[in-house]
């Protein structure tokens, strides 16, 4: 017996030494989170391949990213995400070692070190007006001579030293009506030619000494017809311009400062004339013009004479020309043919000489080629080889070389606009999924390794093996549903109109699909995706029916443009059907009803104030007719400051109307006075949010009922003066008012004004509370305010006897027409950080306590317990309150560095955070998107309902075995002892 106790004690000590921890350790990074880095749709690309070292390409993108990519693998060497207002106008390489970027309409010039991306210098340039900006970096390779970088922007021409960014001189061109078109710098010359148009009708050429900035000569000449502004420079002393009627090409020569015009009617050189358009690629002594959808190559002769050399009917994408050997210039063109794309590199002087002709099989879901950039290299057999970087319609970036796609980057994911999550298919017998299970021996081996690791006995190699084992562990990447609901698909709709399905396990793209316009009409070649809705989520037919999502798109950017609906199968990524709906889409409202095939009913409001019911089936119509009286909706007019509530009235009248169209009537309005309030933010609860308990027990055993109406709208308004940037007004001029409005009756349930405060307001609405973030001008700090709303009409139901005898009104239907008796509690806290977005965790049953997910200005996500923003916090909480978990009141919210869920990573350009429940109550999926994507799983109250991944089953087994053995041994020992005693 004593032996048994000793063994037990030993085991106890042994077990207690195995530390159980819930926070994230270094070796847990990447276990359930992933991070993907993107750059966005490429605008400019500059190759850097001269040196023998790493071959790279410098790109600038529409997401305001400047990045250096590895040409071999497509990986990012370095990248910088500039601010949202800091759009990049031009990028180039200077002195062979600096990347020069011009941004913010030509007012900020920066140099980055080419190998590592460190900023070398930054210069703010003086700007007086909005104008287009031009960046001209001398191509001179002589390093000893410092040719300045010539920048035009904001009405000033600057010469900036490439070495240190010092402004050498600046020249004022802010003259009224003057617009600079081109800055040309003939190589080896110290004269800069500046060509501009005065009032679009007079061409002016300045010759400026590049050393001093003095105007050496100035010539001007009036062109009677006027210019359209489209221009293409064909050589160092010639440009070609379209006139204002778009039917005459004008060659402007300014050799030695003399201006000469040469007019050519387009109808003279092409038979079918029409409105012409100069295409952007720069080709030497040639230009590409688009007339009547045909691309025409026009050569510019020595005397400015134009002649057509080629004419193509296909839609093609072209690159700029680049010099190849023997003073020849070549350019690339790409056109589509079926599922293939054809890349051709031709000499500019002789279009019949094709240097390279390649056909590449291309995924249909990448759309057309938008941009081509080429680069040449010397092949092993000393001939010219070409590699082409192409940008596709879905924003993806591909490198083509030797007839193959060397690498591709899905840059569409840098511009995600809407996200939803869907379940994976249920595992069926016979469906082969990636085999991840090991044999028992391997399983045991793995656990022995883990055990060693947790007992700190493992050697460094074994530690590495353990880490590897964890990262690829336990079938987290399977394409089937799991018990805990950790595996899901994240559907992301991008700005390019492409739908991606990402796996939560490792973030890989399961499928992707480019939206198509059903009509293929010219006006709507490719619809823009707006929003994503769950269309059909089968529960009863989960085994044989696939869920589908509804993608609402629009033809064109205008809100009155006709909409397009597309239904996509979630498991296969195939488009089930798509339709032109023939009316505009202002608002899409999922209704809480489904038909017999579990398709959700949706209402779509158009600009005429009609609503349309989808799906257009008689069954849906009958379901809708039943609830016709109880359907309300509202519109927020942010421009006129009026919120309107509507109810259904009758079927539409008019010849185009069908039976699924309904007219509405106005029920209520909230009119904000335009001189004092302007709507800046509106927010509702998520429709699918689950509230577990409707009551909240106070410390004094009192009961408060949460006001959990789904028809609450949070509105924030500021005084119109304060709608600008923070600090642009004095505290007296600005105030912020927040409202909680019932969207059925238009009642204002809560109204609170913050004097001396200013937007932007970021808010989150969940259960019965709203948390919003704004700037306090008086305190010069950001503030977070919480508002909790409680229902007083049910406050009488506290008596147990009432509940038992059924004399309560808890089961009575709640109607918005009853006069609401609500109680609101509110409290404000300072918050040290500026915020980009706020979200809240959500779990299956809503039992787990909630965390606010705050996207900070540093592009990280901070998880803040809701307890910190409790309005009931007091300075000195009583013992009972402390027991309940009320934190003593502080005037600011804590930022605990360990609670960053993104740990050391940054989600560059963070725009949104989405939380979705897993099947396990304690855990929630968190997906953040911006330029980067980030996913992790969070457990706001720790994983109380499951063992952690780290749990060592081997240790448990060994313990059991050891205990059994100990019991057996002690039993034998005691038997022996007994026997010997009996023999005594």
């Amino acid at each position: 017996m004593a032996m048994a106790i000793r063994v037990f004690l030993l085991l106890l000590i042994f077990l207690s030494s195995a530390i159980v921890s819930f926070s994230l350790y270094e070796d847990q990074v990447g276990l359930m989170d992933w991070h993907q880095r993107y750059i966005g749709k490429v605008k400019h690309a500059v190759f850097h391949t001269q040196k023998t070292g790493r071959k790279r390409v410098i790109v600038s993108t529409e997401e305001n990213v400047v990045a250096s990519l590895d040409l071999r693998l497509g990986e990012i060497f370095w990248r910088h995400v500039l601010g949202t207002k800091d759009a990049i106008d031009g990028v180039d390489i200077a002195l062979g070692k600096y990347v020069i970027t011009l941004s913010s309409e030509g007012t900020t010039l920066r140099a980055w070190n080419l190998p590592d991306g460190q900023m070398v210098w930054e210069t703010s340039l003086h700007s007086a007006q909005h104008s287009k900006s031009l960046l001209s970096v001398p191509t001179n390779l002589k390093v000893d001579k410092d040719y300045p970088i010539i920048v035009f922007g904001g009405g000033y021409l600057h010469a900036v030293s490439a070495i240190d960014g010092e402004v050498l001189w600046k020249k004022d061109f802010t003259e009224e009506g003057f617009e600079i078109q081109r800055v040309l710098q003939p190589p080896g010359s110290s004269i800069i030619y500046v060509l501009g148009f005065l009032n679009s009708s007079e061409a002016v050429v300045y010759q400026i000494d590049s050393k001093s900035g003095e105007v050496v000569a100035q010539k001007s000449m009036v062109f009677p017809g006027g210019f359209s502004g489209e221009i293409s420079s064909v050589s160092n002393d010639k440009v070609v311009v379209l006139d204002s009627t778009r039917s005459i090409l004008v060659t402007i020569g300014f050799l030695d400062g003399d201006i000469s015009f040469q007019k050519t009617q387009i109808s003279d050189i092409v038979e079918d004339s029409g409105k012409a358009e100069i295409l952007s690629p720069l080709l030497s002594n040639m230009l590409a013009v688009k007339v009547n959808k045909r691309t025409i190559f026009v050569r510019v002769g020595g005397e400015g004479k134009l002649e057509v050399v080629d004419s193509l009917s296909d839609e093609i994408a072209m690159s700029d020309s680049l010099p190849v050997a023997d003073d020849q210039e070549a350019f690339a063109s790409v056109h589509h043919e079926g599922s293939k794309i054809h890349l051709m590199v031709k000499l500019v002087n002789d279009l019949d000489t094709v240097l390279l002709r390649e056909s590449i099989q291309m995924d249909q879901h990448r759309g057309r080629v938008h941009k081509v950039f080429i680069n040449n290299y010397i092949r092993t057999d000393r001939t010219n080889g070409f590699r082409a970087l192409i940008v596709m319609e879905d924003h993806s970036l591909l490198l083509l070389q030797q007839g193959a796609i060397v690498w591709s980057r899905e840059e569409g994911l840098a511009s995600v606009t809407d996200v939803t999550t869907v379940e994976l298919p249920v595992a069926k017998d016979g469906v082969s999924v990636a085999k991840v299970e090991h044999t028992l021996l391997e399983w045991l081996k793995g656990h022995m390794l883990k055990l060693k690791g947790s007992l700190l006995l493992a050697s460094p190699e074994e530690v590495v093996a353990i880490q590897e084992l964890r990262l690829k562990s336990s079938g987290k990447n399977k394409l089937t549903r799991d018990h805990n609901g950790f595996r899901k698909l994240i559907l992301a709709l991008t700005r390019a109109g492409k739908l991606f399905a990402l796996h939560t396990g490792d973030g890989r793209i399961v499928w992707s699909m480019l939206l198509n316009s059903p009509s293929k009409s010219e006006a709507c070649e490719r619809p823009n995706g707006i929003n994503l809705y769950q269309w059909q989520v089968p529960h009863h037919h989960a085994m044989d029916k696939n869920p589908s999502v509804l993608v609402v798109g629009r033809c064109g950017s205008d809100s009155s443009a006709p909409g397009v609906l597309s239904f996509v199968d979630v498991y296969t990524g195939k488009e089930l059907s798509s339709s032109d709906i023939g009316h505009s889409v202002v608002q899409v409202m999922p209704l809480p009803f489904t038909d017999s095939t579990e398709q959700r009913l949706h209402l779509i409001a158009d600009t005429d104030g009609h609503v349309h019911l989808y799906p257009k089936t008689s069954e849906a119509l009958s379901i809708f007719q039943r609830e016709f009286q109880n359907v309300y909706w509202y519109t927020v007019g942010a421009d006129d400051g009026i919120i309107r509530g509507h109810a259904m009235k009758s079927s539409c009248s008019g010849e185009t109307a069908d039976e699924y169209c309904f007219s509405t009537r106005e029920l209520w309005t909230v009119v904000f006075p335009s001189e004092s309030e302007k709507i800046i933010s509106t927010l509702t609860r998520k429709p699918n949010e689950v509230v577990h308990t409707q009551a909240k027990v106070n410390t004094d055993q009192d009961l408060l009922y949460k006001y959990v109406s789904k028809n609450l709208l949070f509105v924030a308004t500021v005084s119109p003066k304060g709608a600008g940037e923070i600090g642009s007004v004095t505290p007296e001029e600005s105030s912020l008012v927040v409202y909680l409005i019932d969207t059925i009756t238009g009642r204002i349930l809560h109204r609170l004004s913050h004097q001396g405060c200013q937007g932007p307001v970021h808010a989150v609405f969940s259960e019965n509370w709203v948390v919003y973030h704004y700037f306090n001008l008086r305190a010069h700090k950001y503030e977070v305010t919480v508002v909790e709303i409680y229902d007083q009409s049910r406050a009488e139901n506290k008596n147990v006897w009432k509940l038992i005898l059924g004399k309560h009104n808890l089961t009575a239907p709640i109607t918005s027409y009853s006069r609401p008796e609500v109680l609101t509690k509110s409290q404000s806290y300072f918050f040290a950080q500026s915020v980009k977005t706020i979200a809240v965790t959500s779990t299956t049953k809503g039992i787990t306590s909630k965390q606010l997910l705050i996207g900070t200005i540093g592009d990280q996500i901070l998880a803040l317990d809701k307890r910190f923003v409790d309005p009931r916090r007091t300075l000195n909480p009583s013992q009972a309150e402390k027991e309940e978990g009320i934190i003593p009141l502080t005037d600011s919210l804590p930022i605990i560095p360990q609670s960053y869920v993104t740990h050391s990573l940054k989600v560059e350009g963070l725009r949104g955070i989405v939380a979705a429940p897993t099947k396990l109550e304690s855990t929630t999926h968190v997906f953040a998107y911006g330029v980067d994507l980030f996913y992790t799983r969070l457990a706001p109250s720790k994983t109380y309902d499951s063992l952690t991944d780290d749990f060592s089953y081997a240790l448990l087994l060994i313990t059991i075995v050891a205990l059994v053995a100990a019991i057996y041994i002690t039993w034998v020992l005691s038997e022996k002892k007994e026997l010997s005693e009996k023999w005594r």
Partner: protein
Amino acid sequence: MAKLTLLLFLFTCFIFSSSFAFQSDELLVDDDEFGLEGGAKPHSTELYTSSSSSSPQQQQQTPTIRKRYSDPTDLDSKVQFTLQHAFGDSDFSPAGTFSARLKSWSHGGKTLTKLRFSRNDFSAEEKDAFKNLLKGDEFYRIRLPSNVISPPGKEFVIASVRARCLPRDGLDEHFIIHMEGANILAVSYGSPGACQYPRQFKLPAKWAFNSHTILKSSEQAPRTPIFTEEKIIGGENVEGEVEPPPERSFWAKYWMYLIPLGLVVMNAVTQVSNMAEEPTGGQAGGSQVQQSARRR
């Protein structure tokens, strides 16, 4: 303490306002019936309820401002605005008049006080229209101008209610008018209490309105009390760590060791006592047997 400060505050406000009112004696004379009314803060919530049973009154169709006094320096002015109603989708028609006093503040703000409401009785046609609404469970809609000085202002503020919510004994209605200066933001309209669902068809016993009106302006956000220097330091301590766990008792700390230890001790004690008892007990028994044997 709080009461005291409130009293002090009100008092100072009173002094303050009366010093303003000093310019015009008449203002004070007019204010006599409400005493401290003028001392209310312009931006605090002003609740003012007036209940009036409807009485047919001579109507003023177009709302206008009527200056009661010819004195141009007077800061207060009477204002009237009409309530209009509509049955279902019909056009709006006048239904009653609100009259109130417009108070101008030195900082340029304007507030409404002393709201009064006179409701028109339903005419015979209106009664029929309302009955139809009750039958069809339709909407009874009302509207107010969004600006009381220059009606209708930007647009009318509309509110509506299912007609079946109104009838009880009479017709009970409840207005909450949300004001921002002289602008009406929104009006909440409905029955003063609950509205049962499903709504039953029920005609009112008497066709007279029983109206309640409340005027609401915005409320200032509560502010965290300004912390003194020490408290901020104290607060920062709390910030870093959530809270230092309170010192636990010896038993709470070491129970997991103490219980097995106790078990071991108990076991050992029983074993020792067993061992000690066994031989003595045996001897005792033996000697007794011997003794009894001797006796025999």
